[in-house]
């Protein structure tokens, strides 16, 4: 570039291969054509060109060494780009590049701020671990109970159908019915109380079954709870009253 009018050398098209030399015949003609064209287009700049350039350079901030200012240099570069973006009289491409730099800086600042906010939020969240999990667990615990009541009613009917053990008590009541014929002959009103008591005093009845069948008739009206011990005494009393009368 330094010496004007440098002649084109065909060896410039050859990179060591013979095939390139064969194929460069037509390209050399084009190169000569371009060379002749360049020679004919020799235009010198106008007289005031340098002053124009220096006037434009005077509007520019002095060039800075990259990285010398650190953050300050970056801020200054963004400020210059912002000023360049909105200054008139400059090519659109230059202003677009400056605007791109401004937008890039804005996006970088925004993303940096977002990352900082998220980081601070996570740090704050990590400082309160017991509080945060507790509310999250309680709603989960409150949800399962709602299905469980639906299950429990389905279970409860089956136990209600199983009161077969209560049916087992009726056989125990049958022996009392077997003893009722003598009570029926003695008096009325003993049926209701006797049924309930038979279930509770079944064991005592069994113990008393072998010998005290007749004494049950006398014990039914008064002594419901301690029937076992009183039954042995009453037979002895009745002979006394008989003896007195």
């Amino acid at each position, binding site marked *: *570039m*330094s*010496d*004007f*009018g*440098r002649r*084109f050398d065909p060896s*410039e*098209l*050859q*990179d*060591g291969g013979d095939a*390139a030399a064969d*194929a*460069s015949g*037509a*390209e050399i*003609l*084009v*190169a*000569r*054509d*371009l*060379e*002749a*064209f*360049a*020679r*004919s*287009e*020799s*235009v*010198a*700049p*106008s007289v005031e*060109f*340098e002053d*124009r*350039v*220096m006037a*434009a*350079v*005077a509007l*520019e901030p*002095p*060039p*800075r*060494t*990259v990285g010398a200012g650190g953050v300050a240099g970056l801020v200054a570069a963004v400020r210059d780009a912002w000023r360049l973006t909105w200054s008139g009289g400059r*090519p659109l*491409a*230059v202003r677009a590049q400056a605007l791109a730099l401004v937008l890039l800086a804005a996006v970088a600042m925004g993303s940096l701020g977002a990352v900082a906010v998220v980081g601070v939020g996570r740090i704050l969240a990590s400082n309160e671990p017991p509080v945060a999990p507790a509310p999250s667990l309680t709603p989960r615990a409150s949800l399962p109970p709602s299905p469980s009541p639906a299950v429990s009613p389905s279970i409860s009917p089956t136990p209600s159908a199983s009161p077969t053990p209560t049916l087992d008590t009726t056989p125990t009541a049958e022996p009392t019915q077997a003893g009722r014929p003598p009570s029926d002959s003695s008096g009325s009103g003993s049926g209701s109380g006797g049924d309930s008591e038979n279930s509770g005093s079944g064991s005592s009845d069994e113990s008393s079954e072998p010998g005290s069948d007749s004494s049950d008739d006398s014990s039914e009206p008064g002594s419901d709870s301690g029937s076992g011990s009183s039954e042995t005494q009453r037979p002895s009393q009745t002979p006394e009253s008989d003896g007195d009368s």
Partner: protein
Amino acid sequence: MRAVLDGDREAYRRLVERESVALVRACHRILGDRADAEDAAQEALVTAYRQLASWRGEGTFGAWLMRIGVRIALRQAGKRRTVTWRDPLAPGAGPSTVDPITSAADQSAIDSAPLADPAILSMRAERATELRAAVTGLPEPYREVVALRFFGEATLDEIARQTDRPIGTVKTQLRRGLARLRNELERDDP
């Protein structure tokens, strides 16, 4: 360069004086208009001043500046729409059978013709327009390499250094660019 980085604007004026001639000339070869060429050269000089701190110092300042200017000029040339009016009834407007070698011979005849001949001047201007449009219509990276070599008059070593490409790659791109250029010129002037 250190003086410019220290804030000495007069030092940069000396650089402008030294490099502006070649820079404006290269931009003019691409754009074909003096005012446009000076605008592109001015933008290149201001851009170079702004980015002077980022210049790695590989090669000469002129080669670095020339690449900036050529890129700016090529970008501006790509934005423009060159409209060429052709009279279909004019002689020679139809398809011709001129091969590139004949065309090059005609070009050399045009170059050696007296500059005052209006017909020769018109043909030369038309040829310049065709060449300019063909170069600016090349795809990258051929466009930049061809423009730097023939419009910017840069050596292949300078191009390789400025574009960070091996010298073999630059040679290959130059050869392929010229081949594409030939095809394009043959298509325009069959």
